[in-house]
């Protein structure tokens, strides 16, 4: 019987068989490093990142310096990632002593403004949003030998998790800054754009039927060993409270306390731009902070950001679970990523109890399930799953729809809570297609995403989890697996806070308008807008059948910049989410443009454009377009000439096991000997 069950069931979606996917070819993007040497060296770039954190929001200015050391006039283009959910609000170009301020314009209009200025020989810059977390900058007419600086300002939210497990109460703040892009997988049939047309982004992939802007989101990438573009990063942290911990997860940092704030900077002159930056801090006070309100008045309206941390009961979840684990074993997961994914899966398997059911799906070009349908978590089945995980090899494409379909359609056993845990680096171009698919088919299942490696598409994974009514965790290094997965397992196995309702004093708009379910450790974040936000807010919900409520007085607030921009960003997101089903695309587009103009924000339909008023050069001088390479994420992959391998895990664990074992045996001996010894000395027998 075992042998029959060992046979894997392969499911193929008939439709997708013919589609030829384009894969990132390191040789191709590397070509210009060898042959077109002048292409990169003529346009050097320095990136400087300045982050100021106040409360739950951060204001970041990213300064990019372009040096044109060629004898010709040049145009630069650079694709760069920003943190999730950012509200981009300012663009400033500095040429010599002149400062040119940018303004928000409708996307097509902005492009016309930019191209006109370029043709007229003026200095101009254009910032466009390619994805919610991917942006491009273009800068025209950099004079020979000139240094030109572009400053982009945006707001981002600090992530917060609270941990009440084991009586160990503390909150943890996390600030992430992506330093690199990993090449995405682009499925579909190629539909090449005309060279030089707006649809042609100059990337390594051609546009396809399924990813219509592939050439715009696939810039040339520099490997870890060719770090020609230096990056510096500074953080000013106004925590407002004493900290018990302040550290960076992947970089060496210098930190000191000055002018009432923590000053953090990357240690050493050349930071590794191929690893994402993550700063983590914990307040020294261990008391449970129930709620915080941040307020900003803009125009004649109050804007608020509320954070509320529900207290937790520790009754384990009474419902039995049916867990489907999906693992991405595509080529982009090679190297350390697949190791992390393996560890994460094993951790998730360990969380299953005997009455739970589970299944395991692996995918690259096609998906493959370990069992026909979910099976009981017996020792034999779990062993089979562990063997399966041990044999995983990362190779091939990333066809994500198949495994998700299999998981969502495999039929739920009545009386079980269906949970899908999706382990991937999220490197695909067809994100919109996948999110739409999950939104319409998720049913009663809950989708949890585990993001693996540096340069992970965390925005995409957060969106998937949002539509799948689950949560998301990110693991960038092997040593983080245990910590982050135990967070996820706590969420999978604890009761969720659901049916959350907000009762406002009067006349208040708030977002999200449909409250998500809250998992263990997650705070509730609400953005609100009203003429005057005063009075008490009552929050109610249900947890494991028990009603729960909390009152937040709006009178006690802290003023914080950026709250209005946060509201604007969330309002734009709401319209984008509804686009295509609740409201038409055109309606959504119009509303987004209105909001983006009102709050002066970048969006899929608005861009930032800056044009110098004085012409710099004659029309005749040839304008050469230069693509500045982005940074390739360093996940220790083995492909091609760019090879920074992460350290292998080299501890089998004999010593710790042996010491624990011998300690327990020594205790046994002591326990056996103790009565004899105590009787000899005539004292009272123990126990």
């Amino acid at each position, binding site marked *: 019987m075992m042998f029959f069950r060992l046979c894997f069931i392969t499911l193929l979606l008939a439709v997708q068989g013919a589609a030829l996917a384009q894969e990132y070819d390191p040789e191709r993007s590397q070509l210009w490093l060898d042959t077109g040497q002048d292409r990169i060296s003529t346009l050097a770039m320095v990136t400087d990142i300045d982050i100021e954190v106040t409360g739950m929001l951060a204001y970041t200015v990213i300064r990019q310096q372009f040096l044109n050391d060629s004898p010709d006039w040049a145009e630069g283009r650079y694709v760069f990632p920003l943190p999730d959910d950012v509200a981009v609000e300012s663009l400033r170009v500095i040429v010599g002593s002149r400062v040119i301020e940018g303004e928000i314009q409708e996307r097509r209009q902005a492009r016309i403004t930019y191209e006109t200025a370029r043709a007229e020989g003026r200095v101009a810059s254009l910032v466009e949003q390619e994805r919610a977390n991917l942006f491009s900058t273009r800068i025209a007419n950099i004079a020979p030998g000139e240094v030109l600086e572009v400053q982009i300002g945006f707001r981002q939210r600090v992530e917060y998790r609270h941990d009440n497990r084991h009586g160990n109460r503390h909150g943890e703040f996390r600030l992430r800054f992506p330093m690199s892009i990993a090449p995405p997988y682009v499925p579909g049939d190629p539909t090449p754009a005309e060279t030089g047309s707006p649809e042609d982004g100059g990337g390594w992939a051609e546009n396809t039927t399924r990813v219509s802007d592939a050439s715009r989101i696939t810039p040339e990438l520099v490997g*870890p*060993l060719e770090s020609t573009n230096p990056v510096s990063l500074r953080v000013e942290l106004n925590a407002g409270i004493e900290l018990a911990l302040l550290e960076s*997860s*992947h*970089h*060496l940092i210098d930190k000191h306390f000055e002018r009432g704030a923590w000053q953090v900077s990357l240690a050493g002159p050349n930071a*590794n731009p191929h690893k994402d930056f993550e700063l983590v801090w914990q307040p020294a006070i261990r008391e449970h902070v129930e709620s915080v309100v941040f307020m900003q008045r803009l125009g004649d309206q109050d804007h608020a950001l509320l954070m509320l941390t529900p207290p937790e009961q520790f009754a384990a979840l009474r419902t039995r679970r049916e867990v489907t684990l999906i693992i991405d074993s595509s080529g982009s997961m090679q190297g350390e990523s*697949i*190791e992390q994914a*393996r560890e994460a899966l094993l951790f998730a398997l360990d969380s299953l109890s005997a009455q739970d059911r589970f299944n395991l799906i692996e995918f690259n070009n096609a998906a493959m399930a370990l069992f026909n349908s979910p099976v009981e978590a017996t020792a034999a089945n779990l062993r089979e799953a562990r063997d399966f995980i*041990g*044999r995983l090899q990362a190779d091939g494409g990333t066809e994500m729809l198949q495994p998700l379909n299999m998981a969502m359609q495999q039929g739920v056993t009545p009386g079980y809570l269906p949970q899908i845990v999706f382990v991937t680096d999220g490197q695909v171009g067809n994100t919109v297609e996948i999110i739409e698919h999950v939104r319409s088919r998720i049913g009663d299942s809950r989708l949890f995403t585990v993001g693996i490696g540096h340069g992970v598409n965390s925005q995409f994974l957060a969106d998937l989890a949002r539509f799948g009514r689950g949560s998301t965790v990110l693991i960038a*290094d*092997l*040593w983080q697996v245990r910590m982050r997965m135990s967070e996820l397992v706590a969420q999978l196995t604890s009761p969720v806070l659901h049916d959350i309702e907000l009762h406002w004093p009067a006349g208040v708009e708030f977002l999200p308008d449909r409250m998500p379910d809250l998992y263990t450790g997650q705070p509730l974040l609400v953005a609100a807008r009203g003429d005057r936000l005063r009075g008490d807010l009552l929050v109610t919900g249900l947890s494991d059948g028990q009603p729960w409520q909390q009152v937040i007085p709006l009178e006690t607030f802290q003023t914080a910049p950026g709250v209005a921009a946060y509201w604007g960003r969330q309002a734009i997101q709401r319209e984008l989410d509804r686009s295509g089903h609740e409201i038409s695309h055109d309606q959504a587009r119009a509303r987004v443009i209105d909001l983006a103009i009102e709050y002066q924000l970048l969006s899929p339909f608005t861009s930032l454009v800056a044009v110098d008023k004085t012409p710099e050069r004659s029309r005749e001088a040839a304008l050469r377009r230069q693509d500045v390479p982005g940074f390739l994420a*360093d996940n*220790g992959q*083995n492909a091609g*000439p*760019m*090879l*920074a*391998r*992460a*350290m*292998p*895990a*080299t*501890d*089998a*664990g*004999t*010593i*710790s*096991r*042996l*010491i*624990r*074992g*011998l*300690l*327990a*045996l020594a*205790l*046994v001996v002591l*326990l*056996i000997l103790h009565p004899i010894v105590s009787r000899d000395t005539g004292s009272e027998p123990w*126990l």
Partner: protein
Amino acid sequence: MIRPLLICCLLAVGLWQVAGATGIQAKAWLGQILLERAWARSQDSDEPVVPWPGSVSHPIARLQVPELQIDHLVLEGADAPVLAWGPGMEVGPHGHRLIAAHRDTHFRFLEQLEAGESVRLELASGDVEHWRVADRKIVDARTTGLDLGAPGDRMTWVTCWPFDTIETGGPLRLLVSLERQIAAVPPALLASTNSTGVSP
């Protein structure tokens, strides 16, 4: 009443942990014996020999340190499932050889390894390379990577550090770099040895 229960529990935990530790050592020891057979067979064939059905890797080299009586068969790949059976080797595109093994099994001997020690590496092709320990250093795996693509004749050994810590999966690694010794080969043969033995 509680006491026998406590004894039973502690006994069970103790035996389980000790058995786990013994299991790891046994696997490491057994792996080498099974690999020995596969290695002997692979000497006669051109294709990689699968040591046992369902095995995760196959032997690609034999590593010897005569001074310390060390003789290990090296597997292909340096992932966790491979390292349980023996040291694992990855080779970069320009020939950088990276060998990783567990600090508590096959690379236990790195503790006694000193600079200048000679090392013999026999490849599946039958070529024998002579290396010498050049340098040891301790690095933090969270902030340091290995440059597998580095050019030139290089070999690096990696294991966890320190050797006797109770902590499992710590961030520190011991890196041993080795340099190729070609002095033993007569100058006339140097060119041909280089072209066959070194290039990846």
